[in-house]
């Protein structure tokens, strides 16, 4: 089972799916401000994950949006103008690590339980809850892996699925002193990438 089965920029409807990471200050309304800029351009936010960053008082958001890459790039620049947004990066074309977690409740009788547990093992997922007629499963991986797992579980009866959406992070440099993802402009991409030294927001 490949952990990198899909390319991050692909999408089934022909629109490009972009992954954008924003480092933001934890202030009231920051999510509404960020979401408002996507809304203005009619973008659907396919997934959004927010969580505390390494510094107290700051959070990181990972967005997946579908849209024309040049417009996503412009929205990223407008995002960076928001006072509460410290740094924005379209990481789609960077070398990134990305993961998604899913919790699933699947019908399981005494007869099917064994088969389900086998699948869980193959996908390196975990049983996190067990009841008389169902089991709770936790899976982590790239979205394709989770998609495949759900389809294989479907015949047993998938009762509930809760997915986190994608979290992403540029890979660490391979050499000591090398440059980590956030400071590079991806060469083949015309997309704009924030540099931490940018005097980039007004």
């Amino acid at each position, binding site marked *: 089972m490949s952990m990198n089965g899909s390319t991050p920029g692909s999408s089934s409807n022909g629109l490009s799916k972009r992954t954008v990471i924003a480092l933001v*200050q934890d202030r009231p*309304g920051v999510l509404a401000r960020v979401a408002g800029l996507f809304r203005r351009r009619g973008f659907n936010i396919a997934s959004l994950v927010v969580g505390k960053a390494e510094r107290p008082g700051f959070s990181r958001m990972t967005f997946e949006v579908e849209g024309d890459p040049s417009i996503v790039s*412009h929205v990223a*620049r407008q995002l*960076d103008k928001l*006072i*509460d947004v*410290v740094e924005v990066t379209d990481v789609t074309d960077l070398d990134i690590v990305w993961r998604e977690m899913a919790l699933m409740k699947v019908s399981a009788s005494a007869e099917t339980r064994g088969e389900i547990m086998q699948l869980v093992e193959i996908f390196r997922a975990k049983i996190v809850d067990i009841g008389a007629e169902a089991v709770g499963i936790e899976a982590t991986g790239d979205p394709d892996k989770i998609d495949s797992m759900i389809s294989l579980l479907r015949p047993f009866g998938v009762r509930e699925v809760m997915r986190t959406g994608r979290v992403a992070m540029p890979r660490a440099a391979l050499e000591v002193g090398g440059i980590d993802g956030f400071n590079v402009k991806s060469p083949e991409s015309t997309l704009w990438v924030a540099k931490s030294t940018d005097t980039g927001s*007004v």
Partner: protein
Amino acid sequence: MSNEGNELSGAQIVCESLVREGVDVVFGLPGGAILPLYGVLNQYPELRHILVRHEQGGSHAADGYARSTGKVGVVFATSGPGATNLITGLATAMMDSAPVVAITGQVGRAAIGRDAFQETDITGATLPVTKHNYLVMRAQDIARTIREAFHIANTGRPGPVLIDIPKDVFAELATFNWPEGVELPGYRPPGDGAIEDVKAAAELIEKAERPVILAGHGVLISKAWDELKELVEKAEIPVVTSLLGISALESKHRLNAGMPGMHGHAYASLALEEADLIISAGARFDDRITGDTKRFAQKSKKIHIDVDPAEIDKNVKADVAVIGDLKAVLTQLIPEVSENTHTDWVRRVEHLKSEHPSMTIRETDELLGQHVVKTISDITGGRGHMVTGVGQHQMWAAQFWQSTEPNNWQTSGGLGTMGYEVPAAMGVQVGHPDQTVWSIAGDGGFQMTMSELATIKENNLPVKFAILNNNMLGMITQWQDMMYDKDFYANAYTGNPDFVKLAEAFGIKGLRCTSQDDLEATIREAMEHDGPVVVDFVIRADENVYPMIPAGESIEQLIEEPA
């Protein structure tokens, strides 16, 4: 200062903070939620409060004051309708990058979210039309918030900031400490341009044979008119100005080639079209200038200098982009560019001016809007201030106002806000009490905000209003005439008030002028009067603005004269 470290009410902290920001005038209109703030204004005589008649007027007045002085304009309004009435003014300021701070009262903290009387989620409502906004939930946060708001409003690309303060927070006590600075990790306004970008720009300028500078509002915001002039004279580069860039270089400067675009001077649009290099200095390639961007100025490379990185490549792709404060970037650029002449090119632009004289007024005995603006421009010598609304009168004003002083032209460009002309002129006059302020108004826009005549009278602000009265929504009439098969609808004002009597009802001098013969005498009479004047210039009704490049088209569709 004296009150530092003392326990004060939130309302007092607001005033202490405004005084420390150097505010000397506030436009506002009280209401229930902001009354606690008004309750302490008496203690702060440094803060002159001008009581407006409508909050929209307050926001435009703060905007006009801000644009013409470079200082932050301040407006107060109450919660609910008071706050929502500010929105048009905030959006106007946002589009044209004017530094405005709005302070609104909000219902008490315990009532927020319960649809209390006069409650509106104004921070939510103004998200897209402010540079930033705040809801302050503790009196101890007020000083820091105001410090941040003023910093954000008037640095980088300026814009409006709204601060919403619940009624009980004005009453809450807190120790007043004025913060030494602001800590905004997500906000780093650019200063100098990157030197490699400046050098790349200089290299393109050196190689260009037909360069044109497109000077925008950024020149005036960053007070870079001296640097602009030095650069254009050193390298002999013709300049065209955007609508908001008018007055960046004196109109009669030999290298000023006018305003391009939809109703701009034809020679300016043609100069952009024929150029081999366009240097945008604090302009944003607005659609009124470019028309169809795919067909805009194909023969030229573009240098885009802007303080806002999100402007680069937004409408027109830049070959070289320099991000920075315009004054700083031009200062860096001037020594990198050698003294040069573009004799043939300048001659070509001169030729375009004589071949496409968009400044001639056709022969007629009737009074035209163009006559009015031209005569005001001649009599004032392009000095003092000119403010306009939006529509035909604005375009004639842009074409015929021959500015001789930097930043003496204020108009609603990006948002195109009719009604801007009355309150904004009031704000400009407050900022420049000893200078002549002319407001060119349309009869349509004037009626949107004319309630501020009462404020003008009350404060004896000697604004001179020139209503170009065609009893029409003139630009609507023109579009229906030219683009909607003369299918006229909702374009005529058949029940306009008598503007002379109206002025008199406000206690303001009213004059009427209906012919070219009386034009000069009327304008002089208005200027000699020591106080506000409203002049009703009754102009020919069906006069279209030319030249015209229809919306979304290119220079090939230029219409220079009536068919």
